[in-house]
């Protein structure tokens, strides 16, 4: 299986940082690329919902939410009792793994399109649904009796954060304006892979810059950062097949199960669990799980689907 051209940019970014090349990637451009990807994914999903939306999506959505609840419940005891992390850190990291990474999802979509594997185009709906349950489980796991959570601020962070707002907004716009999508299609659909390549270049640099944190954390961190996406990916794959999704759909659900959030959940966790070590969670999701998923995980989830369906 040939490596996707966009992933080569991720490797380039990582190499550039490792050889200390002075590449200045403007922060505003990175933020702009993230906004673009969120809007493009939301729009694609909205258009697909308008074309293929049906009542069968309701039970499927329920099962996807269940997946988002189960994954942090698996991650938490591993972190707490094997990793010997404190309750707050374990809960915060578990919440990251229960939620999804929009970057990983975008790479998975590009991978499936390159391999000509069909998938359910309404998947962005599941991306939106998977953002929230893990945050709720994370808070429940971290909470001790007597702890007070600033619910108002937290709900604002959960539902009005950049990724949630833009993804849901673009999904609704795509659903509502599906017949007019042709006018904005050249920007949001045709340029998708080029923008993804630039985004991955920056992500490669970010991931490589966090390698020094890994050296301090030890081998458990690396093992967990690889084991958890495989567990979540396998669960997602099995659920996708049970839900009757296509092989591309089951692979995408595996990607959602195996990815770890680094945009929406960190912001929510800072409010919900202020005592947790937030840079630890980001190191897990950005320095280990994201590169693993991009380079190795996504083809592995496709392989899981292949094995389970045959």
């Amino acid at each position, binding site marked *: 299986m040939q490596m996707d051209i966009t992933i080569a940019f991720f490797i380039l970014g990582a190499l550039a940082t490792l050889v200390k090349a002075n590449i200045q990637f403007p922060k505003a451009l990175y933020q702009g690329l993230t906004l673009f990807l969120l809007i493009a994914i939301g729009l694609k999903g909205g258009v697909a919902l308008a074309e293929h939306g049906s009542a069968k999506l309701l039970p499927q959505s329920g099962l996807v939410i269940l997946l988002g609840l189960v994954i942090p419940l698996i991650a938490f005891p591993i972190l707490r009792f*094997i*990793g010997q992390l404190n309750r707050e850190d374990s809960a915060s990291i578990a919440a990251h793994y229960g939620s999804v990474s929009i970057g990983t999802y975008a790479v998975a979509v590009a991978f499936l399109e390159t391999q000509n594997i069909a998938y359910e185009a309404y998947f962005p709906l599941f991306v939106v649904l998977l953002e929230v349950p893990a945050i709720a489980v994370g808070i429940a796991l971290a909470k001790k009796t007597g702890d007070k959570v600033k619910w108002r601020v937290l709900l604002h962070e959960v539902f009005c954060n950049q990724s949630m707002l833009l993804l849901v907004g673009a999904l609704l716009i795509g659903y509502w304006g599906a017949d007019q999508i042709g006018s904005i299609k050249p920007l949001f659909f045709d340029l998708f892979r080029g923008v993804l390549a630039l985004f991955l270049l920056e992500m490669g640099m970010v991931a490589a810059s966090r390698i020094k944190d890994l050296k301090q954390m030890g081998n458990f961190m690396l*093992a967990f950062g*690889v084991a958890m996406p495989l567990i979540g990916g396998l669960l997602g794959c099995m659920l996708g097949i049970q839900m009757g999704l296509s092989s591309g759909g089951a692979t995408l659900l595996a990607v959602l199960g195996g990815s770890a959030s680094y945009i929406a959940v960190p912001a929510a966790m800072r409010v919900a669990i202020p005592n947790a070590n937030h840079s630890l969670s980001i190191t897990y999701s950005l320095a280990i799980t994201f590169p693993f998923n991009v380079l190795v995980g996504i083809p592995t989830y496709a392989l899981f689907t292949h094995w389970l369906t045959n």
Partner: protein
Amino acid sequence: MKRFMHIALQDKQSLFSLFTGLVVTLIGASAMSQGHNGAGLMMVGASILSLAGFSLAASLHRTKHAVSPTGSMTKLLKPKEA
């Protein structure tokens, strides 16, 4: 080997790493045996296994060194006691 196993069973983190490394390597190997690309998984699995192995070897080394000074101390003390 017995001592290595004893330390591995006590050190939950290294045991978890060893298990993860082994499983990932096995998935990679079975993918390759069926003609799929499993080289990446094999590399990741081997890296985790070797890191866990180094960590366990370091623990083994530490316990050996923790025992020997006490041993030499008793040797030094014994003639005086006699």
